[in-house]
C-alpha cells in the first residue's frame, strides 16, 4: 500500500528554488528531476519544499535561518510502497523519514464558537431560489413548540417584524402567562429566528409548552410532557375548526425532549414514554401528522463525542420518545461546512421505537439570533430543527402541495429521498446524517414546484 511520508533532507539548490517560488506562488511544487533521490521514496512533485532552518541547533534558529537560501534542512513530501507501516524505514539515504498522518478539523462541540452565520445557512439552503418561486412560508402557520417567543427581540434581530398569529397561539393554563410573543428571550426565540431563514413570510404561532406550569409539573424551564400533550390537543382541534384551520398548511417545530431514560418510568413499565410507541404522546403525534400537520423533532444532543452532560454519558439508543416516532421528521445537526456537530444524537433509536432516526440533517451552530448573548451560536439540534421547519414551511407555501394533496408522510419521504450526501456517506441511511443534508432545491425539482 501507499504510505505518505515526510522527509527531512539537507539543503539542495532545487529545494531552495522550490521554497523560494512557493513564497510567492501558491501553486508551486518541486522539480523532482533536479532533486536528489532518496531510496524507496517517491517524491511528491506538487508539494513545495519547506525550509526548516538549522534543524540540529536550536540556538541558531533565527528568522533568517528559515530563508530558503540559508536553510540547512528542508521538508519534502513523498510516499513509500509497503505492506505495513512497520516496514517503513527511518532513513532513506541522507533523509530522515517521518509520518504524514491524515488530519481532520476539530469537531464542533458545545463550547465551540459559531461557524458561519444565518446568511451562510441561507446560502447553503439556496433560499434566494426558494424566494424567487415565492416559496417563503406565506399562507403557512409555523408553530414554535418551545419556551415561548419574544417578538420585540425577534423584530430587532431580523430588522423587520415577523408575522405572529397571537389568536392561533396556545397559552398554558394556570398562572397568567405573558401574551403570545411576550415571553422572555430564550430558547424559543432562537428557534423562531431560525425558522425565518427559509420562511420569512410564515405566520409564527407560539406554543410555550416548556413554560407551562400544571400542578405537579416540573421546574421552571423544564415542563413536563403533559403540557405538550395539552398543546397538541389544542393544535388538533384548532387545525380542524379553529384559527389554525385558515392556513394552507401547518408546520410544528419541536426542539425538546428527554435527555436520559432515568427521567422516565423504569424500563419495562407499561406506561413508559421513551421507548413505548403506545404512550399517548407518541400516539397523539402520529395522529397529528395523519391530520396533515408537518411535525419536526430535533434528534437530541446526546451524540458522541460531545454529548450534553445531561445525557450522563449515554450515547447509544439516544433518540427517544417522539423524536423516534416514524411519522415525524427527525433532525440531526451539521455545521455550515456540512460536518456533523459532535453532540448531534446518532441512530439507531432506542430499541422498540422506529430505528432509522435521524431522518435528515440540517444546519446549526451558526451566528444567528444571539439569544444567549452577543457572539453566541444558535446551537444544538435545537437550531437544526427550526431551520428545517422553515424549509418545510417554505415548500408548503406552494399551492401545488397542500396537505390534502401531498400528505406529511409523502412530503417527508420526498425530503429524505432528495437529501444531499456529503463525501464518504453511504447510499441510504446513515447513523450520523440520516439520509443526508436537507436540500430544498432538490425537493423543489422533484416536486415540480
Amino acid at each position: 500500500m501507499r504510505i505518505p511520508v515526510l522527509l527531512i533532507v539537507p539543503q539542495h539548490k532545487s529545494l531552495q528554488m522550490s521554497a523560494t517560488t512557493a513564497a510567492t506562488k501558491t501553486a508551486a511544487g518541486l522539480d523532482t528531476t533536479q532533486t536528489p533521490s532518496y531510496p524507496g521514496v517517491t517524491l511528491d512533485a506538487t508539494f513545495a519544499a519547506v525550509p526548516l532552518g538549522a534543524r540540529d541547533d536550536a540556538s541558531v534558529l533565527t528568522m533568517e535561518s528559515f530563508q530558503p537560501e540559508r536553510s540547512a534542512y528542508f521538508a519534502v513530501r513523498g510516499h513509500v510502497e509497503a505492506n505495513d507501516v512497520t516496514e517503513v524505514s527511518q532513513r532513506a539515504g541522507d533523509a530522515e523519514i517521518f509520518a504524514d498522518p491524515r488530519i481532520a478539523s476539530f469537531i464542533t462541540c458545545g463550547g465551540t464558537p459559531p461557524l458561519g452565520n444565518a446568511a451562510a445557512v441561507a446560502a447553503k439552503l439556496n433560499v434566494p431560489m426558494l424566494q424567487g418561486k415565492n416559496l417563503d412560508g406565506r399562507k403557512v402557520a409555523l408553530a414554535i413548540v418551545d419556551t415561548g417567543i419574544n417578538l420585540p427581540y425577534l423584530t430587532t434581530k431580523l430588522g423587520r417584524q415577523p408575522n405572529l398569529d397571537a389568536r392561533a397561539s396556545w397559552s398554558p393554563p394556570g398562572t397568567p402567562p405573558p401574551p403570545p410573543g411576550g415571553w422572555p428571550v430564550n430558547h424559543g426565540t432562537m428557534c423562531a429566528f431560525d425558522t425565518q431563514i427559509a420562511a420569512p413570510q410564515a405566520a409564527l404561532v407560539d406554543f410555550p409548552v416548556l413554560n407551562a406550569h400544571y400542578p405537579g409539573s416540573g421546574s421552571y424551564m423544564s415542563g413536563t410532557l403533559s403540557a405538550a400533550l395539552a398543546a397538541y390537543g389544542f393544535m388538533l382541534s384548532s387545525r380542524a375548526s379553529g384559527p389554525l384551520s385558515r392556513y394552507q398548511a401547518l408546520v410544528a417545530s419541536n426542539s425538546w425532549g428527554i435527555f436520559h431514560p432515568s427521567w422516565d418510568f423504569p424500563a419495562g413499565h407499561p406506561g413508559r414514554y421513551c421507548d413505548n410507541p403506545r404512550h399517548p404522546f407518541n400516539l397523539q403525534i402520529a395522529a397529528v401528522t395523519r391530520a396533515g400537520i408537518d411535525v419536526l423533532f430535533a434528534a437530541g444532543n446526546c451524540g458522541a463525542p460531545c454529548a450534553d452532560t445531561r445525557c450522563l454519558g449515554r450515547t447509544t439508543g439516544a433518540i427517544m420518545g417522539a423524536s423516534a416516532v416514524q411519522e415525524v421528521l427527525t433532525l440531526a445537526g451539521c455545521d455550515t461546512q456540512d460536518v456533523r456537530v459532535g453532540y448531534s444524537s446518532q441512530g439507531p433509536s432506542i430499541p422498540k421505537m422506529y430505528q432509522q432516526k435521524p431522518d435528515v440533517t440540517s444546519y446549526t451552530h451558526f451566528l444567528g439570533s444571539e439569544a444567549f448573548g452577543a457572539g453566541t451560536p444558535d446551537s444544538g439540534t435545537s437550531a437544526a430543527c427550526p431551520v428545517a421547519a422553515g424549509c418545510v414551511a417554505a415548500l408548503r407555501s406552494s399551492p401545488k402541495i397542500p396537505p390534502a394533496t401531498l400528505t406529511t408522510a409523502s412530503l417527508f419521504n420526498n425530503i429524505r429521498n432528495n437529501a444531499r450526501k456529503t463525501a464518504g456517506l453511504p447510499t441510504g441511511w446513515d447513523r450520523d446524517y440520516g439520509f443526508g443534508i436537507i436540500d430544498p432545491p432538490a425537493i423543489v425539482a422533484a416536486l415540480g414546484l
Partner: protein
Amino acid sequence: MKDGAPFVLMTLTASEHQPSLGEAADKLGVSLEDLDSQFGVVPIDPEKGTYAVQVRSDKAPAPSTEPESGEYHGPWSNPKIAPFGPLKR
C-alpha cells in the same frame, strides 16, 4: 388540585364524541373533583376516540395498560422535558 396531591396521566376511549370532564370522570370511576380541570379532556387521536385526562394520584383507578382492556388506560409517564439546546438560567 386538592391537598397538594400530584396528578397522574390517564387515557380513555369515547367513540361518539369528545367527552366532557364529567363524562371522563364517570368512565374512570372517580369524582369530577378528582380530575385536573385546567388540563381538561385532551384529544389524543379523535379518529380512534382516544383522550387524555389527569387524575389525582391518590384517587386514580387501578392501573390498566393492556391495549385491549377496558375504557381507560394508565397511568402513563409524564416525564420532565427540556430544550435540546442552551438555556438562559
